[in-house]
């Protein structure tokens, strides 16, 4: 490196060498420097790959150690960490899996689930609203208040649509030697993730549930969710059915302890 380079220049060049084997060594560096740089490169890669292995234990078990190692190495190259917490190194690994395991789409869904469970595990602690609290707060509600009702979920709760039965995959992976279940669904379903008594957990549901959950999480009112579930140009009967389904979802979220507060 030349003498006029600033510390910022030198650090940018050093980081490039850590991230990329093929980045040229600075002028004036010899074999000893190259050996030292190899140690830093090795430390960097092994720490990030170890973090991925720790976050995606089930995904690794599902695809096998060698395939996981290749995917993790690819992820480190295409998504080098940018934040101070090593836990974030796993961010976007589900997308990496979607790209690398195109013929096995359940892999990306399983990776998403593990990532969501890690996020839930360290999310802010908020006490869920129980049935008694819900009943008390909604005691005086008329039709208008129910329509305006908005739900705030626990900060740890999240959901997405999936095409595989992640519960059966998860349970199979609990065994040392597992048999691969037939997990592909004919129609989309949903998975909801949250933290209960300091343990991350999840449940499978209908695709409609993921849609309703995400809408509610984005601030959509209960009345609007009923209309969303009924669909456009729905008949009175369809509206009635949708309201029943929305009520069932609300009850399920309440019973599972996913709701932090309600307001109308």
């Amino acid at each position, binding site marked *: 490196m030349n003498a006029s380079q600033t510390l910022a220049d030198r*650090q940018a060049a050093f*980081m490039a060498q850590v991230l990329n084997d093929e980045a040229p060594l600075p002028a004036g560096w010899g074999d000893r420097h190259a*050996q030292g740089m190899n*140690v830093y490169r090795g430390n960097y890669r092994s720490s990030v790959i170890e973090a991925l292995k720790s976050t995606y234990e089930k995904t690794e078990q599902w695809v096998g150690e060698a395939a996981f190692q290749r995917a993790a190495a690819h992820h480190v190259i295409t998504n080098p960490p940018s934040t101070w917490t*090593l836990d974030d190194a796993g961010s976007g690994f589900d997308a990496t899996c979607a790209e690398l395991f195109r013929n096995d789409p359940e892999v990306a869904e399983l990776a998403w689930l593990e990532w969501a469970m890690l996020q839930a595990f360290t999310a802010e602690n908020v006490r869920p609203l129980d049935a008694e609290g819900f009943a008390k707060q909604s005691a005086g509600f008329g039709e208008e208040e129910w329509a305006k009702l908005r739900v705030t979920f626990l900060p740890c709760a999240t959901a997405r649509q999936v095409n595989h039965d992640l519960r059966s995959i998860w349970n199979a992976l609990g065994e040392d030697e597992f048999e691969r279940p037939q997990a592909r669904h004919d129609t989309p379903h949903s998975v909801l993730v949250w933290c209960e008594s300091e343990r991350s957990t999840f449940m499978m549901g209908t695709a409609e549930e993921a849609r309703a959950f995400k809408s509610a999480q984005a601030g959509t009112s209960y009345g609007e969710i009923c209309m969303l579930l009924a669909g456009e140009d729905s008949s009175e009967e369809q509206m009635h059915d949708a309201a029943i389904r929305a009520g069932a979802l609300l009850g399920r979220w309440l019973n599972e302890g996913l709701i932090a507060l309600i307001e109308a």
Partner: protein
Amino acid sequence: MTAIEPFGGFGLGLRRTHYADFLDGDVPVDFVEVISENYMIDGGRPLRILEQVRERHPVIIHGVSMSIGSAGGLDEKYLAKLKQLEQRIDPLWVSDHLCWTRTSAHNSHDLLPLPLTEEALQVVCDNIDRAQSYLGRPMLFENPSSYLTFPEDEMAEWEFLSEMTRRTGCYLLLDVNNIYVSAQNHGFSADDYLTGLPLDRVRQIHLAGHTPGEIIIDTHDREVCDDVWTLYGKAMATIEQPVATMIERDDKIPPLPELLSELDHALSLACESISA
């Protein structure tokens, strides 16, 4: 800024493997040290356990990602999270490493070496001033182990550390194993390093194992070696004030009794060194 009073205890790092030991029993340590970043989170079990451990033991929070040597300055979000943890735990002190880990675009998650230049020294001191001012307390910084030196180096590492403490009022976390590793890798005298430091600024000592080889690597995955014990004895014989001593183990972590036995050895050596 208030001074950090000397504290002469013997402690261990709190690792997940030993959570149950610390929650269920009366572990005979004077303090525990935790990796700050593992607890700079919003909630959940790890924080609850740390708070429970804190009820029984003084806690030191020791970071690996402050990146005090970054030319681009400190990450404000990181500082905010660290301060939140510091206020929650009320630690004995807050420490990090003399190194850098991030540029504006990337994070290495490894402790990268700084060129030992006046420019780097000024960057480090400005960043320490910012961190200490933000936290409202002086910090400790640990001498790193390193695997290369820079052609542009203008001073020895101990000179850099001495000037850093003088300019910022920070304290030192002396990692005896790191001195040994860097001395072997770069061919300087570990004794010169020790005698060149302002030892009155040392408040804590780390002891750990390393992996031998053409380049020795600071792996924290085995027992402290004899040469490092010898160097520890010399440090303890030379440092006049009480200092806290800790065994670090981050990989191949053995059952707690093995680490306590190693800590007992440190205590014996410290007693011998002080009485000699």
